[in-house]
Structures are given as structure tokens and as C-alpha cells.
């Protein structure tokens, strides 16, 4: 226990010293950079999330396009029913 807590407090102390030094050197630009990093991370996630949306639409279109291309009303209705049942 003593070992863990002393290691943790050493790490915490080191992080605080580094943070203070960085702030002394960079001033407010550190906050701006941290904010920019957060914004960039959020934007990267937004891009990644497009995969799911696009895959969902592609999957649906692919399953429905064939009966639609054949203008087969019954097959379209059956495709819509089957699609909902099997996801």
C-alpha cells in the first residue's frame, strides 16, 4: 500500500510541476492548444462515426434496390418486411 500511494503521489507531484512549468512558458496558448486538441479529437470521432451511418444506408439500399429495379411491388413489400424482421 505504502509503495502504491507514494508512487501515485510522486506521479501527481511530477504532473503538477510539469503543468506549472508549461504554463509559465506558454501562458494562455497552452489552454488554447488543449482546447484545439479536444476539438480535433471530437472531429476525428465524428468522421469515424460516418462509417456506421453510411454502412446502414448502403445495407438498406442494397437489400431494397433489386426488387425496386425490377418494379416488382410484391417483392418490394416482401423485402421491406424481411429487412425489418432480420435486423
Amino acid at each position, binding site marked *: *500500500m505504502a*509503495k502504491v500511494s507514494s508512487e501515485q503521489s510522486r506521479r501527481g507531484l511530477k504532473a503538477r510541476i510539469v503543468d506549472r512549468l508549461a504554463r509559465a512558458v506558454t501562458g494562455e496558448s497552452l489552454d488554447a492548444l488543449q482546447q484545439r486538441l479536444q476539438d480535433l479529437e471530437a472531429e476525428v470521432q465524428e468522421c*469515424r462515426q460516418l*462509417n456506421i451511418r453510411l454502412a*446502414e*444506408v448502403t445495407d*438498406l439500399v442494397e437489400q431494397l434496390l433489386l426488387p425496386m429495379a425490377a418494379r416488382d411491388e410484391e417483392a418490394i413489400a416482401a423485402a*421491406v*418486411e424481411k429487412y425489418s424482421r432480420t*435486423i
Partner: protein
Amino acid sequence: MVEQVPMDVTAVDGSGVHLSSGTDTVVDVLFDGRRIWSFWTLRDAAPEAGGLLARWPPMLKRFLDGQTRLAVVEHVSGRVVFDEEMSLGSSTKRIAVVDADGRPLGIDKSNRIATTFDTRDPEHTAPLLDSTEQVLSALHDAGVAAFPAYGTLLGAVREQDFIGHDSDVDLGYVSRHTHPLDVIRESFRLQRDLRGRGFAVDRYSAAAFKVDVVEADGGVRGLDVFGGYFLDGRLYLMGEIGTPFEQEWIFPLGTCTLAGRTLPAPARPEKLLEATYGPGWKVPDPAFHFETPRTTHRRLNGWFRGSRINRNAWDRRYSRLREIMPPEQASSLAQYALHEEGTIARLVDVGAGRGTDALWFARLGVPTLALDYSYGASNAVGRVATEEGLDLEIAWMNLHELRSVMAQGARVARMDGPPTLIANHLIDATDRVGLEALARFARMALSGGGRLYADFDALTPGEQHVPEAGWDPLVPKDVDHVAGALRATGAVIVHSTQVRQRVTSGSGEKAGADRPVSRLVAEWRK
């Protein structure tokens, strides 16, 4: 320099195991000779009164009332650190950590209370092996090379058997696709294929799902299937792996042995195990926790996750209620919709929950569709509707799975009669994406006419929502924001009012406080 303190247990009581320990050691806690729980002495214990305290896992606490012979044993060396007949709570009975049917339970590696393999006989694991082979074979037929993964692969390689402290079977496959979009589409295709073969499939993410197999005794067992793929020399496997990896370590598949059965395995299973559990994978660790790097977690989240917002919490809530009939009183929203419409040609309850309103409408002779994302939430209502021969269909839709929203939207649009949609406390139970999906669904479903009726907890003017500790099923919403999101999809709000004060429930500070409920009625005119 810190002196190495040998691991020692000083006491065990209602709060947990009191101990001292200089090094992190994994130990098992045994009740009457049976392993119930395992923990790491430093990682899982907190400083307390000059020593350490490993608190009982919350899900174990309800069992801790009675007598037991309690032992704490080092898992790897087998050294007995503590072994005493003792009593917890006030009962004089033996403590029995068992389920409702008397089956022994333990805490598994994922910190769940479950029937772990160390208490199952071969006659109980044989059906599980049959199911495993059945799902592996179905996945193979569907075009992916699946194999036991995670703890199941670890057991097969290390012990040629299930791991005692494990409780489920995990399968994995590595897609031949190299773009997450294609990996997701393949996963959708696999799900459709398995559904077509009669398996129930419940999706965890866009690349992982659970396959339910009905076993010989009628019991249903869920096998987890995790998809993966290679990207730029790294293997990503749901839900924890993102590591430099060679394709030749997976393909072509080899074999492993699990409890006497020969099953497929990655070409170099030890490489996958090292990527999963680290270089120490050969040393048993019944309390293993994944420490997935943040960057891997973010990648897997961004590519594949996000479709189960609050799902687990709703499933847990309904698991105790789904076979019990809900109260028969229809909601104020349902009564209002009927009053306003006079005659309803078709009713669609979006977020139907246990199906109270859906049953009420169906009993009035209205053809009704009840949609919810929690499977089986309205089981009891479904049974009654069948018995009474009602025109009530219960179907699945998840506002966070766009394809389900679009497909159900198209279905409803094709049904006879302009539908009336009700969404009773759905908007406040979902997030921005869910609200936009509801609007999309309504626009599609109501393309031939009809209205959406929605009630939701609303913020008071100027109020900022402060989340309570724990799970908040309903998060009050800003009325203007909700109306704006509906209007953005072409809705015309034909009615907007505050209907009543809902008295909030729960145990938080706000319990018993008044909460305004907003009612919106919208149309999508062409």
C-alpha cells in the same frame, strides 16, 4: 526503499477482506471450499485504517448473511492465507451463493455474478460445446472464419478446457475487409444470415453481436461474436484489441482443443493471447481487467459503437418486469391522442416499453404496432394480445440504428390508413441522435398523413439539467430545442402545451419535485 510486506489477511467482515500486502497478488475467496470471488490485493483494495480493504462486490452483498468456512487463497501458489469458520450478518444458515434454481454462482472475470465453469459438470458443458460448434459452423457457412476468442481461446490453449472462473463463450473472426465501412456491412450481412437460419441475434455494436442458441434442455445461451479486421498492419478486434499483428498469425486457421472438441483457432493463437492478455497470459488471473489503450478504445468506439444508448439499463429494468402484466391504465398521452383523433386507423407506439398503451389501443380494435429497442419488454402484453386475438404487432426498432428506423418507417408508410404515432416519454429517454431519428421515422411513417403525439419531461425556463448519480432514465429536454429538431425535418407543430406536473421519483435530491411535462403534436405536410 519500501519493505516487502508478505500478503496477510487480518480480518473478514461485512465490509470486505481486510489485508496487508506489499506486492500485488491475485487471491481467491472461497465459501465452504468453493471459489466465489477473486481480486488483486493492491489493484482492487483501498487503504483503510493502516491496512487495505477489498470491499465485497456489490452484487455479492445480498448473499452475505449466514455462516461459512471462509478461505482466502493465493490463486497461483495455492498458499492459504486465511481459513476460518465465520459468520456474516445475523442468519444461522450456511451462506449459499446460488441462483433461483439453486445453481452455484460466482463472480466471473468481467465482475458479473454468473454460473462459472468451475461449478459445471461435463453434462452441463456438453450442450454449450454443441452450441459453440453450431454457431462456428453457421458463421463459416456465412463466409467468415470464426474461432474461439478471449477467455475461451485462453482456456483452450492453456488448459484445453474452459477456464473455471469464466462464465461464457466468446467467438471472434477477422474480416478480409480493410475498411470499417465494409466490416460493418459484413457484420450486418452475417446477422441477416444467422437470423435467416433461425438464430436470435442481439447486436452489441456495428461489429459485434450475441447469438442466442436454444439448447437441448430448452435453455437459451448467448454466445458473443466479436468482429475484427486488419488496418495498416494492426489487428483491431472488438471489443479490446488494437495491436501490431501479422495476417499470418490468424490465417489460415489452425485448430485448438476445448474440452475434448477440436475447434478452429488462429494460426498462432499464442500471438493473439499475448495481444489480448499481455505476455503473462500463461499465468492464471481470475481477476483480469483489460487496460485497453485510450487510442484503441477511441478507434473502436468511433468506428463501431454508439447503438446501445441506455440499452443495458432498460434491459435490466425490464428483465424483472417483462413477464408480468403492466398496469392497465393507459397513459394521459394515449387518451389525449384518441380524444383528439376520434377514430384512429392505425396506432404506432414508438418506445412502447411494456406495451401498456399498445394493448389499450389494440383492445379498442385499433390495429397497433408497438416498437421498442429492448427485446421482450412487452412479452406479457404480447401473450395476452395473442390469447385475445388482438391486432397487435410487437416489433423491434432502435433509434440509434438508422437502418431499423428507415425500414420500419417505410413499412408503416405502406400500411393502410394514416397512422397515429405516440411517443410517451421517449424524447426525454433518448439523446439528440435519437430525437433526430424519431423525426426521420415520423416523416417517413406519416408521409401519407397522420400525426405524432409526444409527451416528455421538460426543462423549466432557464434551467440547466444536473445529472443525478446513477442512471437517470428520463432527462428533461428544452421544448424549443425539441420542436426545432422536429421542424428541421419538415414538421409543423400543430399543438404545444404543458400538460401537467410530473412528480419525480427516485431517491435523489429532486425526488418528489414537480417536473413539467410538455406535449407536442406534429404533422409532416408535403
